[in-house]
C-alpha cells in the first residue's frame, strides 16, 4: 500500500477524541457496577455445532471493515445478507440502542462506552470458547480496565496519545515524556501545545513518574500536579481543535496530541517533517471494539464473524485497509513492515506492554483542582 492510499484510509474516519472523552463518564464510571450486573440476554446454550444463519446485521462506523473480508465471510459461511448500518459517533449508537433499536447483531463502540451499554442491558456476555482466535490478542488488550473479565469486548483496533513535533525545528531526540518535559521547560518554552483534555494530559506526568495513568493516590497526583503546574507557564496553549494549525505555522513545534492531523501535515510539503512518537514510558490508548448485542437475531452468524475477523490473514487485510493498529499479534506479524514502523499507527513493540486504557477520572477532585490550576496558568 502506498502512503497516499494509507492516508486516504486513515482519513476516512477522523476520530473526535474529545467528543468521546467528554462523554466517557456516561459509561466508564459504571465499570465496577457492570462487572457484577448480568445483562438481560443470557449466553447462548453451549451446543457443539451451530447453524449459521444466512444473515448478519452490523452497526458500525463508516468504512470500518474491509469490503473484501465481507465478501469472503459471505461466501465461506453462506451468509447472504451482510447488513452494514453506520453511526457517526458513540453517542448516536447509544441513543439508537436506548431508543429501542433492535435487530442488530454486532456493534462497534469505543471501549469507554461498553460498561455503560452492558449496564443498560444492551450487550450479551461473550462465550469465548466460540471465539478461539481471541488467543491472538495481545495481553495489553485483554482484561482491560473497561472490561476486567473479558465479558463483552472483542478488541477491534486502537490508537495512542503521544508527542507530535516538527523534526526540522526540533533536532533533539524526542522519544519519551521526560524529554517532552525537559524541552518544554527549556529550549522550547512557549512553543509546546497540549490538547485541551484532562484525560489525555494527566497520563504525561503520571507515566513519566512511572505510575499508572489511572493512579489516584493523593501523593502521586500531587507529584504529577507539581510537574504540570511547573510546566504551565511554558505551555503555549491548550488546543484540541486547531493544534495542527499552530504546528504548521510554527507557533508551536512540540505537541501533546492525537494522530489525526498527522495525515494532513505529512501530506503538505511544508510540514512533511512532522513526526509522531509514542513515549517510551507508555501512554494512553483508545480501543474500538466488537460487541454482541443482547437481542442479536443471528447469534451464530455473529460468533462466526467475531472469530473470522481475528483470523490472522483476515485481520491483516483489515489493518491494512482501515489504517489503525491491530491488537492481534499474529496478524501484526503479517502486516506491511513500512506500516509497522510508523509510530503514528503502531507503537514500538517494547512500549505496548506500557499502554493503558483510561477510566473516567473527571470526578476525582484532586485531578479537577490540578487541571483548573493548570488551565488558569497556561502561557
Amino acid at each position, binding site marked *: 500500500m502506498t502512503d497516499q492510499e494509507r492516508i486516504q484510509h486513515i482519513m476516512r474516519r477522523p476520530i473526535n477524541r474529545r467528543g468521546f472523552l467528554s462523554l466517557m463518564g456516561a459509561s466508564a464510571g459504571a465499570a465496577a457496577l457492570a462487572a457484577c450486573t448480568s445483562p438481560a440476554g443470557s449466553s447462548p446454550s453451549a451446543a457443539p455445532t451451530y447453524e449459521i444463519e444466512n444473515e448478519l446485521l452490523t452497526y458500525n462506523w463508516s468504512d470500518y471493515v474491509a469490503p473484501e473480508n465481507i465478501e469472503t465471510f459471505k461466501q465461506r459461511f453462506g451468509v447472504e445478507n451482510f447488513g452494514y448500518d453506520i453511526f457517526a459517533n458513540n453517542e448516536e449508537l447509544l441513543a439508537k440502542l436506548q431508543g429501542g433499536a433492535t435487530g442488530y447483531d454486532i456493534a462497534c463502540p469505543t471501549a469507554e462506552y461498553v460498561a455503560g451499554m452492558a449496564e443498560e442491558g444492551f450487550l450479551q456476555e461473550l462465550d469465548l470458547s466460540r471465539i478461539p482466535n481471541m488467543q491472538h490478542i495481545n495481553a495489553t488488550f485483554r482484561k482491560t480496565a473497561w472490561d476486567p473479565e473479558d465479558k463483552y469486548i472483542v478488541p477491534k483496533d486502537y490508537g495512542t496519545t503521544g508527542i507530535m513535533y516538527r523534526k526540522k525545528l526540533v533536532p533533539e531526540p524526542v522519544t519519551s515524556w521526560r524529554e517532552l518535559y525537559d524541552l518544554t521547560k527549556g529550549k522550547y518554552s512557549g512553543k509546546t501545545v497540549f490538547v485541551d483534555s484532562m484525560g489525555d494530559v494527566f497520563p504525561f506526568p503520571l507515566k513519566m513518574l512511572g505510575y499508572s495513568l489511572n493512579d489516584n493516590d493523593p501523593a502521586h497526583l500531587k507529584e504529577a500536579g507539581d510537574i504540570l503546574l511547573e510546566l504551565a507557564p511554558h505551555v503555549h496553549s491548550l488546543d484540541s481543535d486547531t493544534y495542527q494549525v499552530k504546528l504548521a505555522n510554527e507557533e508551536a513545534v512540540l505537541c501533546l496530541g492525537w494522530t489525526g492531523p498527522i495525515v494532513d501535515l505529512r501530506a503538505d510539503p511544508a510540514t512533511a517533517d512532522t513526526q509522531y512518537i509514542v513515549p517510551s514510558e507508555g501512554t494512553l490508548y483508545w480501543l474500538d471494539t466488537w460487541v454482541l448485542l443482547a437481542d442479536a437475531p443471528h447469534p451464530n452468524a455473529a460468533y462466526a464473524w467475531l472469530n473470522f475477523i481475528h483470523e490472522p490473514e483476515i485481520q491483516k487485510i483489515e489493518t491494512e485497509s482501515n489504517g489503525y493498529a491491530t491488537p492481534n499479534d499474529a496478524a501484526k506479524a503479517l502486516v506491511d513492515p513500512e506500516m509497522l514502523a510508523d509510530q503514528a499507527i503502531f507503537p514500538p513493540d517494547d512500549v505496548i506492554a506500557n499502554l493503558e486504557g483510561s477510566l473516567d477520572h*473527571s*470526578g476525582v477532585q484532586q485531578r479537577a483542582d490540578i487541571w483548573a490550576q493548570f488551565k488558569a496558568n497556561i502561557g
Partner: protein
Amino acid sequence: MTAAAGVQAGARELGDRGGGWRSRLLTALLVLPASIWYLFLLVLPLAIVVIFSFGVRGARGGFTPAFTLDNYANIFRAVGVDPFINSLWMAAAGTVGCLLVGLPLAYYIATRAGSRKGLFILLLVIPFWVSFLIRTYAWFLILDPQLAVAAVRDLFGNPDFNLLGTPWAVLIGLIYGYLPLMVFPLYVTLERMDRTLLEASKDLGAGRWGTFRQVTLPIALPGLVTGSILVFIPMMGEFVIPQILGYGRTFLVGNALYLDFLEFRNWPAGAAKAVVLIAVMLVTVTFYLWFINRGRRTREASVL
C-alpha cells in the same frame, strides 16, 4: 411576587384606571405569553441553578440532591478569585471600549449621516446575519501573525509583536462582538435629541466640550446606561472569545464554568460559581447605576 400575581396586579391596575372586565381580560391575555416566558425561562432555571448549587456531584457526574455549602466554600479553592477579577477587568475594559467606539459612531449616525442613516444601521445589523462563532474565527485570521498583523509588525519593526493569545486579542473580540448592543441604545436616545438645545448651549457661551458634557451626554445617558449593561453582563460570562482569540490563556469565569460543567461534569460546583457570578454582576450593576444617578443629581444641582 410570582409571575401570575404580577399579571393580576398589572391587570388590576389597568382595570382600576377605568377599563371594565373585558379590558382586564385582554391585558391578562396579552401579558400571559411574556409571563410564561419569564416564569419558565428565567425564574425556574434560576431556581434550578440555586438548588443545584447546594447539591453534590453524582457518581458519574451531573447532580445528586443534597444540602451542603461545600460548593460555595470551594469556589476559590483551586484557582482563587483570579477568574472573577479577570472577568471584571475584561468586561469593564470591553464596556469602556464599546463606549469609546460606539458613542462617536452613534452620534455620527444620529446627527450627521442624513439620508444614509438607514444604510449605516443596516451595515451595523448585517454582521448579525453571520454566526457569532464564524465572526470570531474571522478575527483569528485577521490577527494571524502571518497575515494582517504582519503589516503592523513590520511598521513597528518589532518581530515579536503578536496579538493572538493575548488579553488584547480578547478585548478586540469583545468590543467587536458587542459593539452593536452599545450603538443601538445610544443611537435611539441621540436621534431623539432636540438639536435646538445644542444651539441654545452655544448661544449661552458653552464651548464644544461644555456642550457635549452638559447637554449631549445627559441626554444620551439613558442609552449609555442601557448599552453599558447590555454589553457588560454578557461580557462577564463570555467564554468563546477568550477561548478562541485568547488561546484560553486569559482565564475568565466563563472558562471556569465550562470546566466545571463539561470537563468535570460537576454541576453543583458550576452552579455555585454561576450564583456567585450573578451576585457579582448584581452588585456591579447596582453600584454602576447608583454612581451614574448620583452623577446626574449633582450635575442637576450644579446647573441650578
